[in-house]
């Protein structure tokens, strides 16, 4: 980047009235990073990046913190922190203050922590000594402080699978506060999670679009019992995380093939997986060896983060267009999600991608046996005409039972998460048990992540994260948003008109940089 270009862009950021002080600092840091050369890759990978076959999600040219980091908060609470200058908490007040302090010192791609811990199991041991009213007031202060000090809807708290006073109180607060931050997931186990807790979570979705429901049995089978769900549908190991998330555009990939399904699976897809993996390897190596994040992080020093629990995320998206293209190459007209044969081709593509990723060694990915985790990536705001992840295109979904049958077989392959958003109509409000039934059935049937939207509340789910329609209106009127994710949401609304149709899914991007 030429100095005069750099200066002009820096000046533009410094002067822009649409960004808060903090957003300007973050953008300026992004600009500085962009002025460096990206990690070296082959000409083929550089071309794949330029032509949109492969995407680095605008993570930046010089990785200096992992994309997603899941600190071991439980251990921190047990042992205290020398870096934070805090002894191990002895009561609920100290525990809440400890966590809030720690959150401010946890990096991720967004500049904010993407994981706040399993707050119920973290805090429940301290809650035994306080009455319900005190618990409510303290958690309310905590929840409000999280929203005001970490204004980013990719910040994500977890609950479950066991019932608890803390978990119930958090759900009550979510229904009252109606904040977009933090994002929230309930871990659901067929045996351990009572129906009444799932029902309360369903009512919470009616109020504010949260939580997501995650399949505890599948997650523990793939990641062990120590896992968390962060940002948008990203499930990873606690004490570890993901160095990077790069993604392969399957729609574009299929366009570069012409011989139908078998040729695609045997030749084209392996080539394109290899290109994506090369980019990932370059970025991981840069993070670990050049900027040496793990060599000087207090989280590593205090045993709260371990390089050997890290892996990376290999994202795929555009499966729907990929399948339709492959079907057309063979002279067919069936569409993914609607035609049984086409849908089955989708399953084969995903299974083949999983097989290829599992056979591709990557450096510093001991958290998953030296391999990346496959991820069904939920999109960014520039993805016009390409369907997020492995979803059926928005507005074109078949009836719910067919929708579930079409997408569920994909879920087993995505240990690090998959987003299929189910859209429920208003009749759900009068029959919340029906939603419990569908969530329970979907999990029992092998769905890993279950998210549903109701079409009537103030919340728009942009992909996995939420913005409020009322906040977007304020952004338009005043030009400034306190939540960085609102700025992204506004871009999505402008590009995709999510506001003029059912308030559900579209696009995401997880840093302001990605919105450029």
């Amino acid at each position, binding site marked *: 980047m030429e100095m005069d270009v750099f200066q002009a862009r820096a000046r533009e950021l410094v002067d822009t009235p649409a960004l808060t002080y903090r957003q300007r600092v973050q953008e300026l840091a992004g600009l500085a990073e962009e002025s460096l050369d990206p990690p070296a890759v082959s000409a083929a990978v550089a071309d794949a990046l330029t032509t949109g076959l492969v995407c680095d999600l605008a993570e930046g040219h010089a990785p200096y913190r992992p994309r997603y980091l899941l600190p071991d908060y439980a251990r921190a609470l047990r042992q205290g922190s020398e870096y934070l200058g805090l002894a191990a908490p002895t009561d609920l007040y100290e525990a809440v203050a400890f966590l809030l302090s720690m959150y401010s010192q946890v990096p991720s791609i967004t500049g904010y922590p993407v994981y706040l811990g399993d707050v119920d199991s973290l805090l429940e041991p301290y809650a035994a000594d306080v009455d319900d009213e005190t618990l409510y007031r303290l958690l309310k202060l905590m929840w409000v402080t999280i929203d005001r000090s970490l204004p980013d809807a990719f910040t994500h708290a977890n609950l479950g699978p066991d019932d608890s006073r803390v978990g119930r109180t958090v759900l009550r607060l979510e229904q009252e506060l109606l904040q977009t931050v933090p994002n929230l997931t309930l871990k659901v186990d067929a045996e351990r999670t009572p129906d009444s807790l799932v029902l309360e979570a369903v009512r919470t979705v009616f109020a504010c679009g949260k939580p997501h429901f995650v399949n505890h049995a599948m997650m523990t089978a793939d990641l062990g019992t120590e896992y968390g769900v962060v940002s948008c549908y990203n499930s990873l190991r606690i004490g570890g995380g993901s160095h990077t998330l790069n993604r392969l555009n399957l729609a574009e990939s299929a366009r570069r093939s012409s011989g139908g399904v078998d040729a695609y699976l045997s030749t084209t897809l392996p080539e394109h997986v290899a290109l994506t993996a090369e980019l990932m390897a370059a970025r991981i190596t840069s993070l670990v060896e050049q900027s040496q994040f793990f060599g000087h992080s207090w989280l590593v020093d205090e045993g709260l983060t371990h390089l050997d629990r890290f892996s990376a995320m290999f994202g795929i998206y555009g499966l729907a267009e990929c399948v339709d293209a492959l079907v057309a190459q063979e002279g067919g007209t069936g569409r993914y999600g609607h035609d049984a044969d086409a849908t089955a081709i989708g399953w084969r593509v995903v299974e083949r991608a999983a097989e290829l990723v599992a056979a591709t060694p990557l450096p510093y990915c001991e958290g998953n046996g030296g391999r990346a985790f496959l991820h069904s990536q939920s999109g960014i705001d520039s993805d016009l005409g390409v369907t997020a992840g492995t979803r059926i295109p928005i507005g074109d979904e078949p*009836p*719910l*039972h067919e929708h*579930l*049958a079409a997408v569920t077989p994909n879920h087993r392959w995505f240990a690090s998460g998959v987003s299929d958003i189910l859209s429920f109509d208003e*009749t*759900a409000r*009068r*029959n919340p*048990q*029906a*939603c*419990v*039934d*569908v969530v*329970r*059935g*979907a999990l*029992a*049937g092998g769905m890993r992540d279950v998210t549903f939207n109701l079409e009537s509340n103030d919340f728009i789910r942009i992909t996995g994260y939420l913005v409020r329609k009322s906040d977007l209106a304020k952004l338009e009127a005043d030009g400034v948003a306190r939540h960085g994710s609102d700025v992204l949401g506004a871009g999505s609304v402008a590009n995709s008109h999510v506001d003029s149709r059912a308030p559900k899914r579209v696009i995401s991007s997880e840093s302001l940089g990605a919105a450029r």
Partner: protein
Amino acid sequence: MSPSALLADVVPFSWVDGPGNRFAVFLQGCNLDCLACHNPHTMPRRTPRARSVTVDELLDQVRPLAPYLSGVTVSGGEATLQAGFVAAWFDALRADPATARLTRFVDSNGCADDAVWDLLLPRTEGVMLDLKALDPGIHKELTGSDNLQVLQSLERLVEESKLAEVRLLVVPGRNDSDDLLRRTGEYLALHAPGVPVKVIGFRPHGVRAAARSIPAPTDEQRSGYGAAIASAVGPQLVTVV
């Protein structure tokens, strides 16, 4: 040989035909002739739009969906007109390990005799009963029949603890007088204590030509209907839709 029925339609996931997510079966043919029926195509006993379905076919459809369901509901038309089939299907659901846990509900207009209930009640967890009008004369105007059998059915279902819900379809100008609503509430409080009541405002959508000129009640009217019933049976039992 698997018993068969004349079927109007199936809704694999229904959220408005009983508690939770339900596989709802709409059998063809009705023994009332309701002016305000919102599914008039299900009324005739014989129509080219209906198809025959066997117990085994329906069971095959339910089995893969069972993990997502609270239960099944048989509606219509009037489900009890094909009570033998309903009983056979419920028995099959109960006998199959994949579907045994599902609850089995019947949606009925109550025009069924004791022999029908003798057959169905041991096989169902609950009946959702339509009461088109408490007044026999108004009932006849709205449906072509009086309501003696409906009220007998209601009282028997209460006795056997099988009345899951009473539905009141309120049609402006026909069965929405203050007096009738008050008497209906009092009747239900006395004869069906503790039973949930769903008060449904008439909607002209989908009805026969003769009923299309009847206006839908305003929101205010609808909540007035609900309040009238709630004042007798208790607000916690009343839902207004």
